[in-house]
Structure formats: structure tokens, C-alpha cells
């Protein structure tokens, strides 16, 4: 499982970080700009919650 970040949609709400701090990283301004490759199985449920929490719909799960 991977996560695609549509960086131009991210507005720094940081809801993904709140749900899954082990998965998502924000830049120094608090925006999510980096795609995430291979989320470990034990973190996938949390990562999905992070994706669903984004009020800007900036995140997409890419299944293997």
C-alpha cells in the first residue's frame, strides 16, 4: 500500500499527522508534500484513517 499526496491540495490541516504520526511527515511549514511508499502492514489501518481525515481530499491510497 502506498499513499499519493496531491501537494497542491494540501493546506496544512495536519489531520493525517494526527491520525498516523508514524506514517505522515510534514514539511517545516506544516504541509504534506511527499508521497509515501510501502506503508508497513501494521500501520495501514491508521494510515487509511489519515487519508480519510483530510478535509482537502489531498490523499489517495494506492493499493498494491
Amino acid at each position, binding site marked *: 500500500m502506498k499513499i499519493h499526496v496531491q501537494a497542491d491540495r494540501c*493546506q*496544512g*490541516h*495536519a*489531520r493525517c*499527522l*494526527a491520525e498516523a504520526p508514524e506514517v505522515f511527515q*510534514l514539511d*517545516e*511549514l*506544516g*504541509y504534506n508534500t511527499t508521497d509515501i511508499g510501502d506503508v508497513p502492514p501494521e500501520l495501514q489501518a491508521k494510515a487509511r*484513517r489519515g487519508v*480519510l*481525515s*483530510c*478535509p*482537502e481530499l489531498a490523499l489517495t491510497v494506492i493499493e498494491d
Partner: protein
Amino acid sequence: MAPPTDQITADRPESAPVVDFDLSTHNSMQSSNAAWDALRTAAPVAWSDDNGGAWIVSSYEAVTTAFRNTDAFKSGRAVRGRPGPGADPGLMPINAVPTKTTSLMIPEELDAPLWHPYRRVFAHLLSPRGVEALRPRITYWVTRLLDDVIESGHCDIVGTLTSGVPGAVILEWLGFPEQDWHRLSAAFHNMASYVEGTPDAQHYLDELEWTFQRIREEVTAVRDEPRDDIASFLANTVVAGERTSYEFATGMVNMAMSGGVDTTTSVASAAFVHLHRHPGDRQRLIDEPELIDSAVEEFLRVYPPARTHARTVVQDTEIGGFTLRKDDRLIISEVSACHDEAAFPDADKFIIDRFPNRHVAFGLGPHRCPGSHVARAMFKEMLVQVLERIPDYQIVEDELDEYPNWTALGGWSRAPITFTPGTRRL
């Protein structure tokens, strides 16, 4: 603040559902919410001749679309909408009923590209990582202000805590002298607490003018001799190699204060009223403290502090099948979007573990409230400590007062409580 609506009455569009919707007539949360529910159901994109003539978008879909389209919908003061006789460049166009105030807010009242460097300053300071540095001060002030009343068994939880904490945290962070804190935060809070036109309201409008004067004095002082505080940092912001203007420096400090001081107050007060009236929700949070984070989001959805914002249309743009014309005004309702059944099943219910909860209490798009992370941190710490330290508090309903106007900002003027006395922590 007399709304100068008679100065800018726009022509009705040829094709639009026309409604009679005067935001400023609602003097309670209940009546305001009911009006938004009715409008959203009847016409989620509508035109009203009230408020100077403006489009109103009230569904989640239309609100999110409008917030994100910053190419078409502008926040800047320089763009005034349909120029009419007496149109005033000093009016704040981000308010649904444009208010007459001379104090600019930077970056909220700017548009890209000018907006970018100023937004970066706030985004960096108030990023989740930036807020970590403030967390010990948030814990300290919640502890200390509860300590001040905990042995007495009673207080006004608004004056003591929900207004006191954001005031202390933000004003300490900015570097304003402690003797000013109470008066400054009381000015923002009380300005909204009294009916417009009454002597009390006029008194606090004068107090608000005093706060702007204090901001100007501090900005002057810290531009001459910077201190180790955030007011100094903001006031000496460098953009494109040059220190920003005195006007913009003042606008940034004003932004931090106006945005920070009486906003978290609103949702935290609403939460304490809610938990008093819904003992089941209170007990569940006491028994399952891991639900606090989702409860914070649900309180924000049900009781968003900022209820509406406005924009100016700069190019013809379609929303929901209607064409908003260049120079039209547009009112965007956060509160209505947050209560839209299409986006939130059982929207009229407070669901403590609602998920997902993509509410718009902090707005959406580029102008998303940059203080949202510090607001959440303050609100959560207040909830945690109240439920730990005075879990049996009861509101004295007869003395509970809400704001008399729910147009732009909602809130509670005062909420006296009684509780079993506890012990100090400091």
C-alpha cells in the same frame, strides 16, 4: 459597528434563487442555526438583497468549492466589489456584513502573490511542530487559571478559563506586558457580548480601539528595539530583502491577536455548556479519555467559532448551476456546511467518535486558519483539566448568556459554574 449596507446595494443577478436572509437578525445560536438549516435545504446557492446584496453559499459542497477557488474569490481589501456610491476602501471585505475598522489583518486580507510570504511566516510559527514549543505554556496557563478558582467552588468558566487561557497564551507569546492581558482579551470578548448600539457595546468598541492603539505602540517599540518575542519577530518580517512596512507589521500583530484571542474561547465555552446539558457525553469522556481528540473535532463541527466569511468575486464563476458575476459579493457559511446532512450523517447529533469528520470550522483552501493547531492544543488542555479537576461542574443556567449576534462569530458572554472545590497544582 454600523453596517454600511445602504452604501453598497448590488443589482440582483438575472438568474438566481432570491431569498430574504438577513444574517444579523439572529440573536441566539438556536435561531441562527435553524435559519441556516432552512436556507441550505431550500437554496444552497442563493442571492439575498440583505447585507448589501450578496450570494450566500450554504451547502458543504458549495462552501468547499468556494473556499478553494482563490482565483475567483478574493479576500483582499483593495478589491471592493461592485463600486457603489460611497463605497469605502476601509471596509473589511472578509466579513459578511463588511465592518468599518481601520486595522488591517495580514495575511487574511491579502491575496496571492502578495499573501505568500506573510502566510509562510504564520504557517512556520504555528505549524504542528511550532505549537509543540508552546505546549508547556498552554499547560501552565490552564493549570494556573484553574488553580486561581479551584478552592472556591465557583467561577465564570468563560472569563476565568475559556477567555483567560487564549488571552494569556497568545499575549505572552506575542510579548505584550502582563498588565495589559486582561484588558486586551476582555475587549475582544466583550465587544461581541453586548447588543450593538448600547452603551456597553460602545464602551467595548472604545476598548477595541485602545487595543489597536496598543498594537501600534508595541509595533513601533519593537521595530526600534526588537525583543525576544513574537511581536518583534512579526513586526520585523523581511520580504524580498526588505523589512515590511509599518502598516503590514501592525496588520500581522493584529492578525495574531484578533485571530487568537476570542476564537478558541467560543468553541471551548460551547463545549462546557454542551457537557453540562449532555451528562452522558461528559461521563463518556471521563470514562474514555482517549475519545478527547475526536470529541474536539466534533465540538468544532457542531459549534464552529467563525460562522461566516465573505469574498469578492473577481471573475464570472459558476457554483451549483448559477453564475456569480465579477464584482458580486459572496458569503460563505462555515456553520451551515458543518451541519449539512449530505456531508455528515445525523448532522444534528453530537457524535463523540464521529469519523471521518472533515468539518470546515477552520475554513478550507489556502486561507485555512493557520492558528488551528494552537487552537486545538488550548481547547484540548482545557477539556482535559476541567474533566480531571472539576468533573462535577454545573452551569448556573439562569446566569448563562450567549452573544447577542451570531453573524460572524458565535459564543458565550459568560457561563457561571459551581463545582466541588479541588486542590491547587502549582
